[in-house]
């Protein structure tokens, strides 16, 4: 038995510890609160202020989670019991540390656990929620409009028309190309690993550094208008404001090249960041895109305080994998052509 087929005992031990430590909202509590379940009545948390008087969201945070965006089809309840949640996490975490069968495609990969990249080895957040989506109440993305369906089909057709996935770099996924991570958002969906954020505030601005591909969002709070509709960006253009303790950020002007769940470029994302505990920010977002979904839908997830640092995630600069993949595809083609020629000549 190869040692690599063992789940590292240390990981499991750590995992157990984390499950105990991570705050878990009580099922049945108002969904917007994320108070602790340590048995005592939770006091409403008032965040400290930055020197210029903003509620202080600063620090390193993660939204790494095992909770899926959409509720699993066979789950009907909104919340698990704490025991069910812990069991579910343990099961998935074990699977993540599970080793692959040698000689299979899945095995052609470095070992995430060896690089600390499986979720159990870093801080992750959890709630008892069975899905991140809280509205509609069934916890799933509403069905698409006909226009939305058509757009999704058109995009797929356009991709297909470009040829094979490895015919050229432009045919490859934008994340692999280091342009932007598919989940960079907004909304900020949890990356598979390095799902970390650094928030820094200065008078008039909130900055959020996303670890993956060093994406920075600089959100002005001065009430300035959105740029004209002709100015569009991969991550849109964000404008923020404070509503009490909550940072509300509205983002429009997407370029539509990294569509979130099939959305159009005219999607409007409203995000709400509320510090609900010393080590928790409750992150909620609402997607409003009538041409894709008849009515807006919303999700929420806690962000947990984590430790830094966020080391530079230069991506494009040493993205050797891209060249290797393309070279590999060309080598495959050459081999296939030679084999065909050989067969033909017989």
């Amino acid at each position, binding site marked *: 038995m190869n040692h690599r087929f063992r789940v590292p005992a240390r990981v499991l031990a750590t995992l157990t510890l984390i499950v105990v430590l991570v705050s878990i909202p009580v099922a049945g509590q108002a969904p917007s609160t994320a108070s602790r379940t340590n048995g005592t009545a939770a006091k409403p948390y008032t965040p400290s202020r930055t020197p210029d008087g903003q509620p202080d969201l600063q620090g390193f945070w993660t939204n790494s989670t095992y909770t899926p965006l959409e509720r699993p089809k066979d789950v009907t309840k909104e919340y698990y019991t704490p025991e069910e949640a812990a069991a579910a996490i343990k099961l998935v975490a074990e699977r993540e540390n599970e080793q692959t069968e040698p000689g299979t495609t899945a095995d052609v990969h470095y070992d995430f656990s060896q690089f600390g990249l499986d979720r159990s080895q870093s801080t992750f957040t959890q709630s008892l929620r069975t899905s991140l989506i809280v509205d509609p109440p069934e916890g799933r993305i509403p069905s698409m409009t006909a226009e939305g369906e058509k757009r999704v089909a058109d995009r797929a057709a356009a991709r297909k028309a470009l040829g094979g996935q490895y015919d*050229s*770099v*432009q045919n490859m996924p934008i994340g692999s190309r280091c342009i932007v991570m598919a989940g960079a958002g907004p909304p900020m969906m949890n990356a598979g690993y390095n799902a970390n954020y650094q928030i820094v505030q*200065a008078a008039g601005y909130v900055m959020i550094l996303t670890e993956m591909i060093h994406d920075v969002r600089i959100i002005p709070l001065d009430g300035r208008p959105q740029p004209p509709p002709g100015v569009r960006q991969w991550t849109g253009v964000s404008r923020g404001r404070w509503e009490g303790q909550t940072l509300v950020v509205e983002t429009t002007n997407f370029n539509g090249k990294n569509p979130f769940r099939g959305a159009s470029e005219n999607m409007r994302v409203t995000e709400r960041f509320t510090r609900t505990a010393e080590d928790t920010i409750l992150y909620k977002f609402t997607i409003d895109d009538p041409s894709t979904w008849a009515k807006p839908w919303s999700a929420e997830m806690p962000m947990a305080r984590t430790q830094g640092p966020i*080391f530079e995630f230069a991506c494009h*600069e040493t993205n050797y994998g891209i060249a290797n993949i393309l070279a590999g595809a060309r080598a495959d083609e050459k081999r296939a052509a030679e084999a065909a020629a050989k067969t033909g000549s017989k």
Partner: protein
Amino acid sequence: MRNRLVTLTTVTVIAAAGVLLTTTAGTAQAPAYRAPRAADGKPNLNGIWQALNTANWDIEAHAAGPSVVRELGASAAVPAGLGVVEGGEIPYRPEALAKKKENYTNRLKLDPEIKCYLPGVPRSTYMPFPFQIIQSQQHIMMVHEFAGAVRTIYMENHVEAPADSWMGWSNGRWEGETLVVDTKGFNDLSWFDRAGNHHSEALHVIERFTARSPETLMYEVTIEDPKVFTRPWKMSMPLYRRVERNAQIMEFRCVEFVEDLIYGHLRKQPSK
């Protein structure tokens, strides 16, 4: 009609003369100036800043020159500049000077900027793109429009760079009116400019940011790299605030602009 012509010509001429009047030598010592304070009492350097010089083409003094790509004609030609290096010349070791010349000759192939690579330090500061300072007590962020390059200046918990990187590992401190940033942990892949001025992974950069008026900062840099230079040397320049009301760091995700250049030869049908 004739009068109007006279007026127009005169206006043009005076404007031409006026331009020079305002561009007095940038490296003059900043006069004593006390910056407005941020809420924590430190000099407030928050804002969107940009260099207004030709250091990104060549940090040393240089005359105008043609574009390295014929098709781009005047649009990519090199504007002349008097340089930002104090004392005029960079004190290269002989073999390092030879490498600089080689870099220059082969700049179309070698300049990391062309490939949309993170620009390194201090080049990120004087690229012809704005950058924004977001200043908190623990961290001062410098977010650059070019390639979305970002620096975290650690104002507390100073540690050594865990690994080498493009933008280095920056520890900062306040010295009176001045933000002093000490950066090490660079790789040897970034350049100082398009002229091929270079460094090794032993690079140590000390930057000093000092407000010199409400809308300008003085930016002074000391470069140390004993593998490449015979002694430490300095550059300095003013940085200007982008005062437009709608000034904003926009996306300049240049990767997709260079993919065909870098990977085009690996296309199924190679691009010409």
